[in-house]
């Protein structure tokens, strides 16, 4: 809670005391066939504990690179990332260790197809040695019921709808009581009707759990509807171009979409994003 802007942030920050991510001067360079590529450059972003921070930017701009660095899937080549003051990665230790305090929900979904939905949700605590399968199943059943997932516990992920799978995956993440949820365009593959249902479901889960949410998306409407703040990123190399405070109070529901304030914020965002999208298009960026 350093910046004065955090004082007037939406109610989220007041509840949670954990899950603040500080990204400072992060660089990520990697080598591709066409030579060295600067995916992220001098990127600094403070994500407040308990907020929903939406990351918006053109395809291939390096948003996912940033997420992978926080999650510990990739190293960074410069700068530091810390979580609640503890260093995740930096010059001494370029790659963070993946762990249950930062759980990722993947773009195409990563529920294990060979485990039932219930076993998937129970997986985390058992692996960490915190619970036996029996205890974890018991807790998982309760958490699934809270999220309205009744009757699909013994189905395999492949047997339920894609919207249902995403909800199971989010519950699987929350089973570990994480500080941060890292969502990488989780609703991208869903049709717009399912998507709207998922947005309200996610908010409902969020109001109950109050974790920090780092949410990557292309969808501006989604970004403004869900987020406390929307960080618009520049095209490669990726860094925040503009950070928009969404001053629509939480809890929100779908009626927000037709409010005049929502329209204004949309306009403001569209212009900033469009500029970057054109740049990315002209540079011929490929989807990463």
């Amino acid at each position: 809670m350093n910046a004065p802007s955090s004082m007037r942030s939406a109610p989220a920050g007041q509840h949670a005391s954990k899950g603040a991510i500080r990204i400072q001067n992060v660089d990520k360079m990697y080598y591709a066939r066409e030579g060295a590529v600067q995916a992220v450059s001098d990127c600094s972003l403070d994500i407040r504990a308990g907020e929903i921070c939406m990351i918006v930017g053109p395809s291939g701009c390096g948003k996912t690179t940033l997420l992978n660095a926080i999650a510990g899937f990739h190293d960074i080549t410069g700068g530091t990332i810390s979580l609640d003051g503890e260093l995740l990665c930096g010059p001494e230790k370029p790659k963070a260790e993946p762990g249950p305090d930062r759980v990722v929900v993947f773009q195409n979904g990563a529920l294990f197809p060979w485990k039932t939905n219930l076993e998937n949700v129970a997986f985390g605590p058992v692996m960490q040695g915190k619970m036996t399968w029996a205890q974890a199943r018991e807790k998982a059943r309760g958490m699934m019921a809270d999220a309205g997932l009744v009757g699909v516990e013994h189905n395999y992920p492949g047997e339920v709808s894609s919207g249902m799978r995403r909800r199971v995956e989010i519950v699987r993440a929350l089973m570990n009581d994480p500080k941060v949820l890292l969502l990488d365009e989780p609703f991208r593959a869903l049709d717009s009707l399912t998507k709207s249902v998922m947005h309200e479901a996610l908010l409902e889960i969020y109001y109950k759990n109050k974790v920090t949410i780092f949410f990557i998306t292309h969808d501006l409407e989604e970004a403004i509807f869900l987020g406390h703040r929307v960080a618009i990123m520049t095209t490669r190399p990726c860094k925040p171009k503009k950070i928009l405070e969404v001053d629509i109070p939480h809890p929100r529901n779908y009626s927000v979409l037709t409010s005049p304030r929502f329209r204004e914020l949309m306009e403001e965002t569209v212009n900033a994003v469009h500029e970057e999208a054109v740049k990315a298009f002209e540079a011929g960026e490929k989807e990463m």
Partner: protein
Amino acid sequence: MANGKQATSAGEIGAWDIFTYRFSKWLRSPTPYRMFVGFALFFGAWFLLSEVFRVWRFASLPGPRQVLTEWLNPNPVYGMSLYTPEYYTHVWMSLRRVLIAFVIATGLGVPYGLFLGWSRNFREFTFPVFETLRPIPVLAWVPLAIVMFRGDETPVIFLTTLASFYATALNTMLGVQSIDEAYPRAAACLGASKWQIFRHIIIPGALPFIFTGLQISVGVAWFSLVAAEMVSGEYGLGYLINTSYVNVQYPVIIIGMISVGVVGYVSSALVRFAGDYLMQWRVRELALGGGR
């Protein structure tokens, strides 16, 4: 609670239910009748070519009627039919060898393939050697097998194991490589250690490919077994085929060949069933599930 009840009944769908469901569906489909017509055409053509018209070259081939009467004859002309105990000795010896070889090949091939796919270092050390040995045909190993191993049984089993091992190991490796990167990452996020990822992600994730490998593996086991039995060993269907040739007992050759075909078909069906049993999630996605 209607919802809860539905959940338990969905949880109780077992392998047997799936089998009966599939079987009744199969009977109602044109598949079995097409299969029947296919066999009828095959045997009909064979019969016409060899026994009715006695077309050039086919004239010296025993016809299906001749083979069948010999096979079902309590007093076979050439001494080999369903009524002679030697027939079963041959079938049993071959089956036993394939079974032993298949168990060895699977026991070595699956772990080897898993490590090939899992560890880059391990792959770089051993895969080039593996790839150099793999194209060497089983028959080229025959002299060495006889020199290296004592007795009649071990060389044959060694030769039968070889090709099966290659097929299993290679498919298992491909299976590990086919696993979506997101799964091990998700598991790591959820706090799984390296070995837990191996046990809960890599092994089940590779299973579909492993079972493809095992089906190829039983197939090539029969293939190399018959070749091995033709050059060494005593008893076995390959041995039977070869000695019948030497003794000019042509119908017995075909009895031996068809026996290999039937037993081979059954053994690969058994592997398929075992795969379905272990991969319920796939069976349910394909047979009953799909976006409900």
